[in-house]
């Protein structure tokens, strides 16, 4: 019989101790976690960034990653975009009873690889098991802490007219791929999530360019929603050009079939950057050196600071408003 996660694994007793000591430590061991105290204890100094997120994706395993690596990268990305180097994360598993233990191992292994790859440590965690049908296989809640070096803190820089809008690469992949997967469609190898750690290029970028004024990862709601957030935050009108937006052919095809605009589709390894016009081309040249931002492109600019609004110049040359995502395009994709 296949070994399954049972309710008793979350009860705090012997089985849970076994799970923590055998499985969690095997994959995630580090000096802070290994102490197995009720809290992780460590020293940090400087300006800190602190974030939290929850991951409830279906399916839990997908091309390009799984719920484990997604929770590590997603948390680290939220830290990196504000200029913080991610250091520590917490993981809280809410497991639906009946999850195969081998799936839990696969997720732990993926968390281990992802966190080692970007040099963060999982320092504390928790596990609860809920009855069958009270959850959906596994939910992961995380928190993350990082340190912001003063030169990487872009928050006080003034976003203004003529600043350029940059996307760090081809848009819309994660959301559209997950949608296809959930529809049960068979897809080619190239059709997959774009999940990745954006700190790999965002942090060096911030070290080299003072003209970076805003960075946000374009997850749920996609690029269109981030642009609207920027318009409202800084009370600016933004204009982007449909022809300039980097988009893979399969994304365009899938968006045609599903009726979902890639501008609203989630990304898991792409950021929107607002940058000073004078450094724009150098920033693009710099970003092109990194694998994850090799297709970085200027897609538009800030045109006025009179009211919060985003416009799209369409491929036929007309212009319309680009709203943020309203309602749902797809439940639970990240």
């Amino acid at each position, binding site marked *: 019989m296949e070994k399954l996660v049972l309710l008793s694994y979350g009860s705090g007793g012997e089985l849970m101790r076994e799970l923590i000591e055998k499985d969690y430590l095997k994959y995630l061991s580090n000096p802070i976690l290994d102490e197995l105290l009720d809290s992780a204890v460590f020293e940090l100094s400087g300006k800190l960034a602190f974030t939290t997120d929850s991951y409830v994706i279906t399916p839990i395993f997908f091309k390009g990653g799984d719920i484990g690596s997604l929770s590590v990268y997603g948390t680290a990305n939220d830290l990196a975009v504000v200029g913080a180097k991610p250091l520590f994360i917490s993981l809280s598993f809410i497991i639906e009873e009946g999850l195969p233990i081998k799936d839990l191992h696969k997720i732990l292994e993926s968390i281990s690889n992802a966190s080692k790859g970007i040099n963060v440590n999982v320092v504390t965690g928790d596990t609860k098991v809920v009855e069958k049908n009270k959850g959906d296989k596994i939910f992961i809640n995380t928190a993350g802490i990082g340190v912001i070096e003063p030169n990487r803190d872009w928050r006080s820089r003034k976003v203004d007219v003529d600043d350029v809008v940059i996307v760090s690469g081809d848009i819309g992949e994660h959301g559209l791929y997950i*949608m296809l997967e*959930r*529809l*049960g469609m068979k897809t080619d190898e190239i059709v997959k999530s774009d999940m990745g750690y954006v700190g790999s290029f965002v942090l060096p970028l911030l070290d080299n360019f003072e003209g970076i004024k805003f960075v946000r990862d374009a997850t749920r709601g996609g690029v269109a929603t981030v642009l609207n957030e920027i318009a409202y935050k800084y009370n600016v009108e933004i204009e982007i050009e449909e*022809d300039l937006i980097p988009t893979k052919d399969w994304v365009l095809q899938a968006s045609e079939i599903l*009726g979902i*605009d890639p501008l609203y589709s989630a990304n898991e390894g792409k950021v929107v950057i607002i940058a000073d016009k004078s450094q724009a081309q150098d920033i693009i040249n710099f970003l092109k050196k990194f694998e994850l931002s090799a297709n970085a492109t200027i897609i538009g600019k800030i045109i006025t600071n009179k009211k919060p609004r985003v416009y799209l110049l*369409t*491929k*036929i*040359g*007309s*212009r*319309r*408003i680009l*709203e943020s995502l*309203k*309602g749902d395009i797809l*439940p639970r994709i990240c």
Partner: protein
Amino acid sequence: MSLVKTINLNSMFNYDSQSFKLFTKEIVDKIKELVGDKEYVIMEFCGTHTHEISRYALRSILPKNLELRSGPGCPVCVTAEEDIDYIINLVLENDLGVITFGDIVNVPGSVASLSYLRAMGKDVKVVYNPMESIKIAENNLNKNYVLVGIGFETTVPMLAHTLINIKQKGLKNLFYLSLHKLTPPATIALLNSNEVKLDGIIGPGHVSTIIGTKAWEDIAYKYKIPFVIMGFEPQDMLFGIYVLLEKIINKEYGVWNTYLRSVRYEGNKTALDLIFKVFRISSANWRGLGIIPDSGLELNDEFKEYDVKLRFPLTKEIKVRKTACRCGDVLRGAIKPYECPLFAKACKPSSPKGPCMVSSEGSCAAYYLYEMN
């Protein structure tokens, strides 16, 4: 001989982006020339056309005196309040689980929506593919489910296929509610009402792929109005509008097909056969248009055992509460979305008061998202 004339647009799609813009400019100039200072009203029946017209801001580049009116071509939007109320009562009285498609769960009935029911803890499942309903029913054999089938001629074949599979598997706990609607009878009802004077009609591309251009011929001749069937790319629509204007100005009527990539005179025979293997024509209740004879589909005798209305008759009579939502008027083209007092105030895509604001094909949602200048 067929009177349907055809124009080949296929060569138009290898253009680079610069040529796209040039083409747009040229065709828009030609349209402006044709329109001159006269006023014309043309209607797009299909919700996808409505959405694309707004998405590409076609109104902003076309002459103001050429009015594009949206018709009742959004399948979610035309679902009557009574039908949503019926599903809600069905669930409350018989504890049926509901299986349906995306948008419909957010459509308000006169009391609540299905998503409200789901939040109350009732079993409301949204599937992407209707065949998933079979798996759900098989995995929950001691619960009864109703699969809510909505959609025009385009969607019906997929659901007919599902019903054939349900029957083959002999499932006893999955029933069907047909809210399907047929487009030509609704077009006739609109033209009969004479509420809006239409000069020409933008014929639906997807629906015509199934039913063929021939399905529109009698209507075009009886009402002496030109139909031009168009694809959904902006250049398809601009070119189609140009052709339609030419016909209007030359006082020609009939059906012209500019969507040759997909639409044939006879339609798709396989799909049509599939539909009528399972369904037969019946009347249907349209939001805004009321009951239109021969505009719906019900299960035929062979599939009657799956008809949820026969299996679970309601004990209570449904009384629809009147709301201030003017979706019905919008669907008939009698008012434009922004002429409804609720538009963009009490009614937004995030808190819709009527289905025209729910569905991405709904004209209120399209206006709200793309044309709120």
